[in-house]
């Protein structure tokens, strides 16, 4: 843990977006699984995800980054072609 001398002054955080280091995946009970064959690349799961856990690739394909997913299931609900299924995490 940093001493008072090592902390930035004025209660600042000087590394933008370093919350990616914080493990939210451990909150998850259900995991989204995307069936790429069914996916129509509409992008709704991507724009509705509260976390930014859906990755939009350059070729407009999508995938889930499970490190950032809390398992809320909004993506599944937003998918009109049912390409996403929520599966219970093992050991829970």
């Amino acid at each position, binding site marked *: 843990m940093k001493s008072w001398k090592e*902390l930035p002054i004025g*209660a600042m955080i000087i590394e933008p977006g370093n919350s990616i280091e914080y493990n939210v995946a451990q909150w998850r009970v259900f995991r989204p699984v995307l069936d790429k064959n069914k996916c129509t690349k509409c992008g709704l799961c991507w724009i509705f995800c509260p976390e930014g856990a859906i990755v939009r690739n350059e070729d407009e394909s999508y995938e889930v980054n499970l490190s950032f997913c809390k398992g809320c299931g909004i993506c599944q609900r937003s998918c009109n072609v049912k390409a996403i299924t929520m599966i219970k995490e093992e050991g829970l």
Partner: protein
Amino acid sequence: MKRVALSGNYAVAYAVKMADVDVIAAYPITPQTPIVEKLSEFVADGLLDAEYINVESEHSALSACIGSSLTGARTFTATSSQGLAYMHEVLFMASSLRTSIVMANVNRALSHPLNIWNDHSDAMAERDVGWIQFWVNSVQEAFDATIQAFKIAEEVLLPVMINLDGFILSHINEVLILPDEELVREFIPSKPLFNRLSPKLAYTIGVVGPPEYYYEMRYQIIDAIERSRKNINEVNREFGELFGRTYGNISTYMMEDADYALITMGAVSSTAKIVVDSLRKEGEKVGLISIRCFRPFPKNDIIEVFEDVKSIGVLDRALTPGGIGHPLFTEIVTTLYDSSKIIPVQSFVGGLGGRDITIDDFKQMYKIIKDVGLSGRRKPCIYIGLRE
């Protein structure tokens, strides 16, 4: 450089103009209002190039000042009494986010009963907010302290409050030396401060500080204000070189061989000096100390002048109901605890809500201080001028 007669309020306004501030956010309150009126005129007349935010409250005044200061603008506001009390929570934020705001606080009593007149209740209630606090004794000092405040605030990244007594200093004209603007600019160049809100940096400011970090973050304020002692002295020395006037953290009068001393803050020291002169003529070895820098408290300066004093009186112009002592008294007694001698200290309260403290009142205080010195026993706090 010219000699002019100005009120304390206008002296502050002229200092702010000469400091070429970028942003002023202010709300009217008696007896501070002439400061922000004058600044408003300067801006309207094109004499000061600043954004003037007519905020809807003191709470917003200081909030806007924090946003402004962190964006890198030289920033000023002024207030009094209820206005300062309304800022209370924001005062902490201004220091803990390490802004360089300069604020004039024209001292006035707190409600209730509503009272627009002078005492020190407002600023004393904000002792612990992490601001540097200056208290001035004259219109010249009000001007000089404001100029110095910008330099100190920008060096140490702590906000500075300049306290001047409502009406007694704020509304009374005194002759002062107004320096040339170029000289002021030489002392405090008109340059932007570090912009901590730049998109190039994307800092996050004003975070949640959980128990494992809050303590360290708050300790930084202790460190900063302790280190500011050096800057305050250095700025004062530099000011003296350029302007020919310097001020210590305390000002003393006839203390070299004094047996009995009275400690005050603010403009009442002028009346006290008259009494010191007259008692000296009668052969009484009395002296006077006025505290100019209340935060950080000038402990070492005070211990030094008390070397050979037999007893001390402390005049508080604010109350700590239910406390062991009123604010200034408590500071002095705590200071003396670390000195090698035991000196009896008598507590006085006077001048609340604009009640005059007369020459006779001061004579009475000096007489009591002497009695305490001779007997070695102090009395409970004496409320000077209170009708029993």
